[in-house]
């Protein structure tokens, strides 16, 4: 076995250890209790699978040419000639070597992880058994977690004599996870090359019936979850004791996310529209069945979906890196705040008194204020856009960053107008045809549920507009501008108009989101609009997949929803997301659900690499094949 594979495997094991160590640190094993070890092993398997699959994807792409007849017959483990010089023997050799090295790598990585965890939990158990206090901050978390991991109940820790076989069990479990992951990775890929016995097996097992069955299972999943969430909400049902609220929220996040995958799994055409309608209805019932806390989190998630979709127009479509996006969010929020609660602003109430209008009542309702907030934000977008028209890349990022801060400082220091750090208070909630939503739905819709509902509808609308624009000539002009500004202009794209439209439309969406945010918060303060809102919005589109609306929804679910699920381990939340982001970028550099174009861009280096190593005669041939096999591979990824 090449040394490279071995070191790579150990490295993978170490990274996985860091990841799992983090999970242990935030208290996952203690929450899981008894099944902690198998569940963690499964998590590790998933982690390995993602890494190994990516590796086998890069390599097996070379081996997906027309398989020689001889290869089909002698499917086995023998490694081909080591010094293969002509292209055909490269093809013959690679799939074999590939599946074997992937298998070995999985096993070794799993074993590394298992040994590390066993050693660490052994040390921790020994320390606890001897009454040695570890760091005070870890004290409340580590013991019970380690105990859960080695199958000891927390009460027994001081006296625990942990038998050796329990540590062995850990090693075995994680090695098994590595094996499982490598089998899955190898089977998934070499199914195309008929290389390893596993491939044969997977081909026989996952025939067309199974494949379509798993597809239907994928489509059914969100509906099952939605039904489960509904069931959890029934009076008297308590599945998870004190954690019920968070668990239900977690299921809500997963159900919404899996809904997007289900939509992608469905066949385009009638099936897809049926799935879409049913999913839409299913998700729209969520505000009615969730409680106040879950609704408030989901409301925030979908406010950020709107933000993400808007920022995606600027960053993802037009390629203008905007770090001051929070400015438009703030403009939308404050515009609605002034219109809805004029009495909170000394300047505006004075003005209204002079004009003979009572500042005690809202000037405009939520819906009538909506166009005003959108328009104000759009004007803000254009005002930012004009001075930065000539800037590109880093310079643009810095200027927009400054713009975001300027708006926040305005809000903070224009005390007469914005009431400074004391904020604008008692902003009214959106109503339903002049009535409070709770009355209309006879109490079914709480105030946060209504916010969530409005956020859902608005996000859908925003996504619709964004997708339609992107597929029109404006979308093409944006993308051309992102690719090469000078050429786009020489090809006939009016740069000023196109850029300003991107800024204005992006800002409009942020204004909508800001208005709803103000209504949700009831009281808003300048601190609500710090730089971190911009960074969150940018992070969620990067995690989800730049340029892909479905990815943005997933990104918002992961970045704004999951931290709330982890409320119980508050102090580690931020670390969790740092780690999650790093892992995300390693495993899926283009985002969870990347747009087709983004995938092309990130696939380039691999293709370029292949290009230079391939035999000159076969060059174009090979590149074309990798291109197509990559496409099918991506198709499969989505299918999963």
């Amino acid at each position, binding site marked *: 076995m090449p040394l490279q594979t071995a070191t790579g495997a150990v490295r993978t094991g170490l990274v996985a250890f860091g990841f799992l160590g983090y999970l242990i640190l935030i208290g996952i094993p203690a929450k899981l209790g008894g099944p902690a070890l198998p569940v963690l092993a499964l998590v590790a398997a998933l982690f390995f699978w993602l890494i190994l699959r990516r590796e086998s994807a890069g390599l097996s792409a070379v081996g997906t040419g027309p398989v020689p007849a001889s290869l089909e017959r002698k499917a086995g483990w023998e490694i081909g000639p080591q010094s293969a010089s002509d292209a055909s023997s490269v093809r013959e050799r690679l799939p074999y070597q590939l599946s074997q090295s992937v298998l070995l790598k999985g096993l070794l990585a799993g074993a590394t992880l298992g040994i590390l965890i066993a050693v660490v939990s052994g040390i921790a158990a020994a320390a606890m058994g001897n009454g040695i206090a570890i760091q005070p901050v870890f004290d409340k978390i580590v013991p019970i977690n380690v105990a859960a991991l080695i199958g000891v109940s927390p009460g027994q820790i001081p006296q625990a004599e942990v038998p050796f076989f329990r540590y062995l069990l850990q090693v075995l479990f994680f090695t098994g996870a590595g094996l499982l992951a490598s089998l899955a990775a190898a089977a998934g890929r070499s199914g195309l090359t008929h290389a390893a016995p596993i491939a044969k097996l997977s081909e026989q097992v996952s025939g067309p019936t199974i494949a379509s069955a798993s597809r239907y299972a994928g489509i059914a999943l969100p509906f099952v979850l939605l039904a489960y969430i509904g069931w959890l909400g029934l009076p008297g049902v308590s599945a998870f004791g004190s954690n019920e609220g968070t668990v239900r929220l977690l299921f809500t996040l997963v159900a919404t996310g899996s809904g997007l995958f289900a939509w992608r799994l469905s066949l385009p055409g009638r099936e897809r529209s049926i799935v879409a309608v049913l999913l839409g209805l299913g998700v729209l019932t969520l505000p009615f069945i969730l409680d106040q806390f879950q609704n408030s989190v989901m409301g925030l998630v979908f406010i950020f979906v709107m933000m993400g979709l808007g920022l995606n127009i600027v960053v993802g479509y037009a390629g203008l890196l905007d770090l001051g996006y929070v400015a438009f969010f703030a403009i939308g929020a404050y515009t609605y705040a002034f219109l809805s609660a004029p009495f909170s602003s000394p300047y505006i109430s004075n003005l209204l008194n002079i004009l003979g209008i009572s500042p005690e009542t809202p000037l405009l309702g939520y819906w009538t204020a909506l166009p005003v907030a959108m328009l104000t934000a759009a004007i803000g977008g254009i005002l930012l856009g004009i001075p930065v028209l000539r800037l590109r890349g880093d310079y643009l990022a810095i200027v927009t960053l400054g713009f975001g801060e300027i708006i926040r400082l305005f809000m903070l220091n224009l005390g007469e107008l914005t009431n400074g750090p004391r904020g604008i208070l008692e902003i009214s909630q959106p109503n339903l045809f002049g009535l409070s939503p709770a009355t209309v739905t006879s109490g079914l819709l709480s105030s946060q549920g209504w916010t969530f509902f409005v956020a859902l509808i608005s996000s859908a609308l925003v996504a619709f507009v964004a997708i339609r624009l992107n597929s*029109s000539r404006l979308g*093409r002009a944006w993308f*051309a501008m992102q*690719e090469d500004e*000078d050429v786009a202009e020489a*090809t006939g794209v009016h740069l000023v108009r196109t850029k300003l439209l991107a800024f204005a439309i992006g800002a409009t969406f942020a204004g909508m989101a800001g208005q709803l945010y103000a209504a949700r918060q009831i009281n808003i303060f300048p601190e609500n609009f710090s730089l971190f809102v911009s960074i969150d919005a940018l992070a969620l589109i990067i995690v989800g997949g730049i340029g892909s609306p479905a990815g943005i929804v997933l990104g918002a679910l992961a970045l704004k929803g999951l931290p709330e699920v982890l409320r119980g381990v508050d102090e580690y939340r931020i670390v969790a997301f740092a780690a999650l982001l790093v892992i995300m970028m390693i495993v899926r550099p283009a985002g969870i659900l990347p747009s087709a174009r983004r995938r092309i861009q990130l696939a380039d280096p691999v293709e370029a690499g292949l290009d230079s190593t391939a035999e000159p005669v076969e060059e174009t041939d090979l590149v074309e094949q990798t291109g197509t096999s990559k496409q099918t591979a991506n198709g499969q990824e989505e299918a999963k």
Partner: protein
Amino acid sequence: MTALLSVQRVTKVFGGLTAVDAVNLDIAEQSITSLIGPNGAGKTTLFNCLTGLHRPEVGEILFDGDTLIGLRPDEITDRGVARTYQNIRLFGRMTALENVLVGQHLRLHASHWSAVLRTTRQQVEEREAREFARELLDFVGLHGREEVVSTNLPYGDQRLLEVARALGSRPRLLLLDEPAAGMNPSETERMMELVHRLRDEKGVTVFLIEHDMKVVMSISESVAVLDYGEKIAEGTPEEVRANARVIEAYLGPDVAVQETAGTASS
């Protein structure tokens, strides 16, 4: 025949370097004109002046009687001047078809609202644009490559796609910056044939920069020669080939004395 493009005393200075020095040039409608000259002679700079990427300090550029000076690149494209680039500059992550659709951007007029609502008019326009893009791809010989991402196209095909993209704006004058650079003989052959068909079938006036003398001599009706930013010769290929200053510019003064009427091959 009246001149479609008339360049008058155009001068472009970069710091202390005069890249284009008082060049006068007339290009007749429906002609094929070549611009040649040693490396750094200012050929591409002249092209950039024509397409609005650079603004010349002095001089006048008239296209069909109207000035192009001071217009933005997209406005110049709108008047009917399109170009390709020396180092291929396609929109790499877009498909071949999308590249040509961007080329048509100026000729599409559906409002963005109608794109959101997908009105019938907008749909019809999009469909026609796609048909036209397919036609253009067929015309340049990229049939069947519509959905290929442009960076994945072979080099020669990328050059052809640049021509198709330029044709998307329905130009009257097409500027080709070294269309045959880096091509193998058969690809060059295809490109030369394409240049002829551009003029004969599409009625486009072609103005091209080229280093391959075989190409220049066989397809051009007239040739202009730049050296150190100055136009040193102009005329039919035969005249230019015999011109002593051209030989001097290409081969150096000594050789020029020896070869009175030699061939100026690169």
